[in-house]
């Protein structure tokens, strides 16, 4: 990002508050992905490629419609197709647009060691600033959704930006603009929740009793949300996490562990210093040398060559 932003609420590897006088009084934004309306056309993938000037390598067909096969440094969103046989024996084709969920409590940002490589804007978007990225991959370790990817070209981490550049100037994300069925909608998070509630009501009236909104509280809610026919089983949708949260191991590693370990190391060094001040060095004095000489002198003659002293042994006690 070349321009200064005054709309950053959280910044990776930064322990003081970022500039914060401005607030998003109009609320945060959200993308709503209605899986029940998605036809899997991949127009969103193409729009993402086009707007962001991304061209992934052309891969090979793995026998399913997923194309490319996975997210990558050059593919920031991806349709994931699941063939699900429901208890009635009917086939349901579940299609989920995968990509960054823009968590309110982002695991990537928590894990990132590079100051300013990951930021969270006041509108809710979590963005990578690749110019500060060092390529360590800790964001992948921290992410509860398996989203960031290190590019093989430049060893920087990439993911969906929620078109932060477009949103900043009042445009909707490119994928939203391309969606032909209205499965993708963008607006304030509040509006999207309301819209989702209407959709869920409609779905329930048409037999999808478990329809619901996916806005997982474990990560503080997300700024990309799903309407699911089977909100009770998110894992049906190509393994969508049922209860995502930042791993407690990551929390230990990049939460409490950091200051405690640093303090303990400083304490260890200080303990040495104060031992020196209070008790002091363990030194050799003349009686020690005299005792050593005496012992050497008492040693058998055969070791004279190795011995420091060359005097003959004597019988002093």
């Amino acid at each position, binding site marked *: 990002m070349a321009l200064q932003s005054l709309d950053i609420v959280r910044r990776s*590897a*930064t*322990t003081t508050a970022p500039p914060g006088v401005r607030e998003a009084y109009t609320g945060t934004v959200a993308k709503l992905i209605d899986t029940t309306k998605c036809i899997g056309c991949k127009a969103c993938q193409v729009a993402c490629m086009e707007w962001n000037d991304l061209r992934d390598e052309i891969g090979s067909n793995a026998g399913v419609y997923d194309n490319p096969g996975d997210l990558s440094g050059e593919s920031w969103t991806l349709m994931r197709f699941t063939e699900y046989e429901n208890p009635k024996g009917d086939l349901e084709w579940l299609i989920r647009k995968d990509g960054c969920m823009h968590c309110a409590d982002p695991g990537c940002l928590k894990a990132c*060691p*590079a*100051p300013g490589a990951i930021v969270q804007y006041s509108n809710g978007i979590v963005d990578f600033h690749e110019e500060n*990225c*060092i*390529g*360590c*991959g*800790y964001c*992948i*370790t921290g992410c509860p959704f*398996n989203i960031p990817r*290190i590019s093989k070209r430049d*060893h920087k981490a990439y993911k969906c930006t929620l078109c932060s550049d477009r949103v900043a100037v009042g445009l909707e994300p490119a994928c939203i603009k391309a969606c032909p069925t209205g499965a993708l909608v963008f607006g304030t998070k509040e509006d999207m929740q309301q819209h989702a509630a209407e959709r869920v009501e409609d779905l329930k009236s048409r037999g999808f009793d478990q329809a619901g909104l996916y806005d997982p509280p474990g990560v503080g809610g997300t700024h990309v949300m799903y309407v699911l026919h089977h909100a009770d089983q998110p894992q049906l949708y190509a393994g969508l996490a049922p209860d995502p949260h930042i*791993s407690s*191991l*990551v929390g*230990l*590693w990049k939460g409490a*562990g*950091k*200051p405690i*370990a*640093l303090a*303990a*190391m400083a304490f*260890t*060094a200080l303990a*040495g*210093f104060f*031992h*020196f001040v209070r*008790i*002091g*060095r*363990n*030194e*050799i*004095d*003349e009686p*020690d*040398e*005299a*005792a*050593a*000489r005496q*012992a*050497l002198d*008492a*040693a*058998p003659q*055969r*070791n004279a060559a*190795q011995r*420091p002293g*060359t005097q003959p042994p004597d019988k002093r*006690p």
Partner: protein
Amino acid sequence: MSDNERRATVERYSSGERTNHWLIALGFVLAALSGLALFHPALFWLSNLFGGGPWTRILHPFIGLFMLIVFLPLAASVWGDNRMQAADWQWLRQLQDVVHNREERLPEVGRYNAGQKLLFFAIAACLLGLLLSGLVIWRAYFSLYFSIGVIRLASVVHAVCAFVLICAILLHIYAAIWVKGSLHAMLRGTVTPGWAWKHHRAWFRQITHAAHPRTRSD
């Protein structure tokens, strides 16, 4: 023979051992500084010592491997001298006497004392832990072979082992300042007979075949 020459003539570390030790020390310092840069934001500035964040990320694992590789010959040569014995546990029970420099109350010490032995095994264990966990989180080459759960665990293990190692080495460095003559021993290889007599009497006897003290019934 001058007095000084006579005094500093017990060889404690050969030139090979000293070279080995300082290569490990160099590896440790570089690995610790680059690792700390990635551990806590307050220390990220240390990455400037290595040419910036990306270079720190690139170099750190290779520096770690270097440290481990140069540790192996040292470990092989001192492993036997570091086995804990009954007297060592007694020495540890008298830690109060140790820290208060009341060495005359302690059991006789061989080539290494119990603190040095424990330090050696702590370093060896930490380096093993750092190697295994470090490979798992080495994103450029190895992380793709491991599940996310293993990578998260390895990240914590790596941090814990590094933390223990750094604390252990801080103690090690202080001990070298504390016990006067130790630093000279590792820099120039020799100690005075009095040093060996006071701090490592059993070793002193072993290398000089000196007689037992009169306090024993000989």
